């Protein structure tokens, strides 16, 4: 049985890669806007469907129009953000929780819209990378890595690097980081919180939707998939620590690992239960994440 | 010799490596008004938080009416007789002024009717009775500070901790607050007051304790402390607020 462990590890890493991109955008949005977006899974679902239809209409390889999906949803996110901002900045009720409830409403709208428009069926987006896999021999161990999953990991790495560059080396990134640390002081320094937040949210939505396309290629997509990915996003972000982006890769790999271990060694039906228990446990023991650096 | 109301015995409070309060000892006798002064960051509010139960001392003990209260939570101490205000006032903004005070009165009078009557009496004492049904969130700063004191008084405390109760008030409001504090003392309450406005605290206090960088550097009558060279030096570079 132990022979399968390396494969489990590798699978975990591959899957985890995809979760990194989801969680990193989510963590960014949280860090800058203090918004916990319950609709994250739905953004992924909507992006996946856009990818599906674009591919069906144009027959172009989905990986090519990843940027298209990013831009489309970036724009949507850009225009949705002011509403969220208004809710979160209000003095009525508890702004943070009202923001949570608002995105909860958004999630319901999207889920309902998804089911209405797309029906209940599952689909998959075909890609040139869908078939084929690498095989690696390491001593006694034989590892199989499907190409598409490898592409997923590469995608995650590229996005992460680009995001890091954006945050660390550009003025915009500086503004976003400043906003995340101290909203008032940033305002005093000439940073426009509304505008910066709009861009941050746009980026987060764009990335999430884009990752949805990827998920549609690697796995399947359906109008009900949103919920599952919201769970995964929360799992990763809570374990990493809300707003603590450096923790995301580790937490994402852990998620991937749990999934693949359960797939190989245990009954996969227990996967979700295990995830919920871990999530709940982490919240109790170390709500600021495994590294204690969350919000 | 009457038992001191509060005895702070070599209390230290550290955060990480920082000694916010460093081996501070003093005591307050019943009926006294003691002022706690020191430059910003000297540890005054931290000391307040230790005495009122929000922090447990890292070392040392606090004795209240002879009992060791070190580390007990604030709600227990409130019932035992320690009332406090907060530097950044903490009203219950969505509730009426009356309800705000009733919460405190409930600790003495569990039945709501009686608690409301009691709250009404306390509000008359502090001059808030005319605003009983106003939403606390809509009060002016002076009103909120007044409410803060009222709530503490509704606990019928033996020791009242006042944390910067006149900061941000105009001279008229400041004088009104000073009057109230004197009324409170006249009731026999013991008061420990933190304040930056020198004329207020020097005129009100029987004794003054001076903190700097967490340690006590002076203690005594206001006039003596004001002339103490180490105190003057501690304040050099600080704009002492002369009202």
């Amino acid at each position: 049985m132990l022979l399968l462990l390396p494969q489990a590890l590798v699978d975990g890493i591959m899957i985890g890669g995809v979760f990194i991109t989801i969680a990193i955008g989510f963590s960014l949005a949280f860090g800058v806007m203090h918004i916990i977006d319950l609709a994250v899974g739905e953004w992924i679902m909507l992006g996946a469907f856009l990818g599906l239809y674009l591919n069906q209409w144009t027959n172009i390889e989905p990986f090519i129009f990843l940027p298209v999906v990013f831009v489309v949803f970036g724009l949507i996110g850009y225009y949705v953000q002011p509403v969220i901002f208004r809710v979160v900045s209000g003095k009525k009720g508890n702004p943070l929780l009202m923001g949570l409830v608002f995105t909860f409403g958004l999630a319901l709208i999207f889920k309902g819209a998804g089911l209405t428009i797309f029906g209940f069926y599952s689909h998959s987006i075909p890609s040139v990378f869908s078939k084929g896999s690498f095989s690696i021999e390491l001593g006694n161990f034989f590892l199989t890595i499907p190409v598409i999953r490898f592409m997923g990991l590469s995608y995650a790495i590229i996005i992460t690097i680009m995001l890091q560059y954006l945050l660390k080396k550009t003025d915009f990134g500086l503004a976003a980081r400043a906003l995340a640390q101290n909203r008032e002081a940033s305002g005093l320094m000439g940073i426009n919180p509304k505008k910066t937040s709009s861009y941050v949210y746009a980026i987060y939505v764009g990335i999430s939707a884009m990752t949805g396309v990827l998920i549609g290629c690697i796995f399947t997509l359906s109008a009900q998939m949103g919920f599952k990915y919201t769970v995964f996003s929360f799992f990763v972000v809570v374990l990493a620590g809300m707003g603590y982006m450096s923790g995301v890769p580790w937490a994402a790999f852990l998620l991937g690992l749990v999934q693949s271990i359960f797939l190989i060694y245990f009954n996969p039906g227990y996967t979700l239960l295990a995830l919920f228990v871990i999530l709940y446990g982490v919240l109790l023991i170390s709500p600021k994440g495994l590294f204690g650096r969350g919000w | 010799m009457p038992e001191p109301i509060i005895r702070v015995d070599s209390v230290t409070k550290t955060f990480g490596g920082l000694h916010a309060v460093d081996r501070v000892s003093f005591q307050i006798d019943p009926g006294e008004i003691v002022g706690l002064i020191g430059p910003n960051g000297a540890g005054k509010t931290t000391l307040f938080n230790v005495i009122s139960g929000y922090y447990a001392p890292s070392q040392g003990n606090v004795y209240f009416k002879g009992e060791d209260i070190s580390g007990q939570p604030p709600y227990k101490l409130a019932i035992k007789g320690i009332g406090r205000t907060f530097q950044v006032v903490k009203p219950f903004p969505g509730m009426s002024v009356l309800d705000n005070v009733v919460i405190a009165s409930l600790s003495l009078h569990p039945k709501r009717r009686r608690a409301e009557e009691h709250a009404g009496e306390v509000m008359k004492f502090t001059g808030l009775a005319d605003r009983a049904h106003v939403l606390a969130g809509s009060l002016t700063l002076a009103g909120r500070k007044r409410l803060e004191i009222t709530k503490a008084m509704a606990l019928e405390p033996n020791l009242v901790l006042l944390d910067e109760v006149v900061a941000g008030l105009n001279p008229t409001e400041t004088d009104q607050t000073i009057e109230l504090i004197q009324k409170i003392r006249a009731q026999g309450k013991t008061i420990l007051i933190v304040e930056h406005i020198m004329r207020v605290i020097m005129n009100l206090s029987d004794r003054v304790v001076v903190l700097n960088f967490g340690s006590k550097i002076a203690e005594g009558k206001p006039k003596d402390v004001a002339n103490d060279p180490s105190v003057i030096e501690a304040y050099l570079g600080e704009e002492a607020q002369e009202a």
Partner: protein
Amino acid sequence: MMRHRNILWFIGIFVGLLVVPLIYSDPFFIRIITEAFMWIGLAITWDVIGGYAGRVNFGHGVFFGIGAYVTAILMTKGGWLFTLTLPMAGLGAGLVALVVGFPTLRLMGAYFAIAMWSLALAFQQLALLLNITGGPDGMRMPAFLNPAFFFYIMLCTVAASFALLWYLMERAPFGLKVGSIREDESGAMALGLNPTKIKIQAFVLSAVPAGMIGGIYAYWISYINPASVLGDIITDQAIVMAVFGGLGTLIGPAIGALIVFAFKTLFWAYLSSYQVLYLIILGAVIAATVVFLPNGIWGTYLTYRKSKPLGSVIYKSVEGDNEHA
């Protein structure tokens, strides 16, 4: 004076409802009203922890589901009498709330919401996996077709819960204390309140009636499974009803429940091919409420009537305080 008027209203409505089955005996109609009661119960109990205590709970449905399964298991596997299972259903839910409340309630608001959400889902997974709960196939109860019986038992349970909550949250000091914890927890501590104790009490108070309602549901519908009683949909609707109706009051969620439920029923009656549209509207309602009417229908009405500035969750101070100060 006002207090007596409220009690009269309550008794009047209650008695009026008692005679409804005697006048309109159409079973379909009776079932609709019974379900309306159920949702009122779920919405007001959610509001105890969500509105009064200010802790948004995305897992409230778990108490409903636990109650449903307790009744189902006791009746089918233990041969218990239905009415005897109800207190157990409430007790089961209450115990879970007590045990779970200690660690979870000390989390900050957003974390509490997510923690409860994941807990509820964990329970759903558990129900799917265990044998005693029948797994994904759920549990079938002995059939008992008597709409009037369930009408009365749901009405009495919800009315009793409403009365109890009204007393505790609006009349007794407890409601005031819960509100102060919501407004400023650390400030409340300085006034003698133990936040953990009060939050747990409110939490258990929200759980027990929800559990009993779940127990009634199980026997009434005769069939339960993890999706129907432990799914998100129960919690989701309760939250929309409470927020839309008005947080921090009892009448608010009750009104919200009635309106949303009425809408849902009409929707399913005339637009049943567009069922998923219901989700969209539900989401739109709550999103719009949060943005435009944060105090809900009833809350906004209260503000308007008393001409108070819109503060945070409107907290009704005691009636009769006009007689004081």
